[in-house]
């Protein structure tokens, strides 16, 4: 294991809202090493995006209370000043968002926006040189005829091209960490496959540490090395890609895996479903937040289990569920596949 580039420890992010205080992220810890893709999986409200945004200081506000530690090569980012953060963003940590249309300014040429980004951080770089660099970047992310397309406006690019350009812009200053927040959710599947291949290639070639935020386990299986599963602001399970897919320990993970419509299997008569809905952060149940939706719930679940290794053979594989490993391996089998037992109606 290489030393982590980015290290997040006991991160807590709370917001004051009209309805009261919500703990959007509650005690999240993880590391990302160079050349590694860590996927954070969760639904809306799970805290996955807030976690990622907090890493580069995008959630700072008078209404937010941020605690814990985020270290990049050992230096703390959470108490860094705005100027210091500005230098980190782009140079060391870059972010790619879901919607590439709203991430570009529609009235400036794509190339000019990349040039501006480079020169804002490196004033010593001349315009011509920055422009050359922009063309190289666009070419490296697979934009054909990049030297000519550099003068196009964002609307002249297709959705997939825009996302490629967005990635090119993120790479402009040669960052060490790339955070991609649902980078392919707005794209067609054929385009998604190309963007995922691109992310994988960049990750390997440049040794980028990548945090991939997604709700799509198919995307995770294609690119991730390790997986963090979030639910209601907490990590409920974490492990290597294979551990999460082939030996999942938390019932929520079983439910997610079981409810997928898979083209590689016979279709079931009924799609296995997770009952109910994620809890409101304003009114979390006591103990395990998944308890109200869990068919395997029992008395002990009123106490929140720690995120810890529960399998002697896999110390990196951690989860928050009181069931014993034997019970888990037995109970997650539903009709021969991993899944969550149907809720009693």
């Amino acid at each position, binding site marked *: 294991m290489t030393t982590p580039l980015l290290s997040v420890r006991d991160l807590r992010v709370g917001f004051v809202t009209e309805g009261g205080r919500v703990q959007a992220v509650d005690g999240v810890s993880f590391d990302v090493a160079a050349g590694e893709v860590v996927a954070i999986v969760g639904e809306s409200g799970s805290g996955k995006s807030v976690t990622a945004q907090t890493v580069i200081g995008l959630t700072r506000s008078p209404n937010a209370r941020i605690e814990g530690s985020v270290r990049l090569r050992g230096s703390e980012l959470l108490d860094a000043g705005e100027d210091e953060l500005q230098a980190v963003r782009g140079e060391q940590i870059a972010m790619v968002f879901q919607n590439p249309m709203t991430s570009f300014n529609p009235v400036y040429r794509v190339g000019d926006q990349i040039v501006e980004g480079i020169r804002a951080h490196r004033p010593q770089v001349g315009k011509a040189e920055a422009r050359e660099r922009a063309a190289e970047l666009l070419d490296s992310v697979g934009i054909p005829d990049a030297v000519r397309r550099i003068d196009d406006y964002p609307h002249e690019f297709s959705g997939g091209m825009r996302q490629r350009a967005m990635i090119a812009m993120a790479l402009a200053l040669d960052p060490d960490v790339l955070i991609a927040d649902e980078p392919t959710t707005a794209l067609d*599947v054929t385009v998604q496959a190309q963007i995922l291949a691109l992310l994988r290639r960049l990750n390997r070639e440049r040794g980028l540490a990548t945090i991939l935020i997604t709700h799509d386990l198919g995307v995770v299986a294609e690119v991730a090395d390790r997986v963090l599963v979030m639910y209601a602001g907490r990590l409920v399970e974490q492990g290597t890609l294979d551990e999460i897919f082939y030996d999942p320990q938390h019932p929520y993970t079983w439910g997610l895996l079981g409810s997928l*419509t898979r*083209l590689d299997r016979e279709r079931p008569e009924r*799609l296995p479903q997770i009952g109910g*809905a994620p809890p409101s952060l304003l009114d979390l149940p006591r103990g395990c937040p998944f308890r109200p939706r869990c068919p395997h719930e029992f008395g002990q679940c009123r106490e929140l289990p720690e995120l810890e290794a529960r399998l002697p053979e896999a110390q990196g594989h951690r989860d928050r569920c009181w069931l014993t490993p034997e019970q888990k391996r037995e109970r997650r089998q539903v009709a021969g596949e991993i899944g969550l037992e149907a809720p009693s109606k």
Partner: protein
Amino acid sequence: MTADGTISRAGVDISAHRQGVLLEVKNLVKHFPVRRGLLIGREVDRVRAVDGVSFTVSRGETLGLVGESGSGKSTLCRAVLQLIEPGSGSVRFEGREIAGLSRRRMRPLRREMQMIFQDPDASLNPRKRVGQIVGYPLELQGVARGTELRRRVQELLDRVGLSPEHYDRFPHEFSGGQQQRIGIARALALRPKLIVADEPVSALDVSIRAQIVNLLADLQEELGLTYLFVAHDIGVVRHVSDRIAVMHEGKIVEEGSADRVCEQPRDPYTKALLAAVPVPDPRQARARREAAAAS
């Protein structure tokens, strides 16, 4: 059973297909002109959104229509329901030609065909209470009023898995999945025969998607509904459909039983589409990547 051994989810034997056709679309065309010039726009080009599409949907059956953005699938839905005027071609509902019918003559037929939309939040009026939203079609068509209306709406809410007490609440008080249930209750209010569902689950969270897919299947079985299910996600489409039609650049490039299209695709576009779907299985994903790298 048909030749490829399919029985519809509602238990309807598809070989009875011919007698049981509910919707028949023939050579449907919808082009949008691209105009240039001030004041009097000169037509310089056409977008062939729907370009000669034909298909049939039998009673109790689900036809899945799959395609990527820009394939014309949403325009096709709207043209079938006469929400936009089709350019040319024929749309027969229960044998009756409805393409080009006036709004007035179309109105009684609207009861028979309803739509479920992608974004439940945007398709529910935020100022109306749930009861008013679901009851509006009944009121509009003069089907029920007063206490009878309330009773029928509460029955509908119950049927889609909401509680009758939700009657007086506003849409924003509900989660995305519950909002989609409200949209489904509204679509069911007039006891339609055909439901056109345009991406009904793609805006929902993964753990909620399966609930809505199963609800639609239950309703089909209970009420004998016929679905035209439109989505970009071929995995979901395969799960719900008896037959699948694949749309690309305004045309249907392939059609067949759901399993046949997914397991033995014939058209190159269908093959490309299936190959691009990420497999939620790391070993398979690795094998596929290695095979692609070797070739």
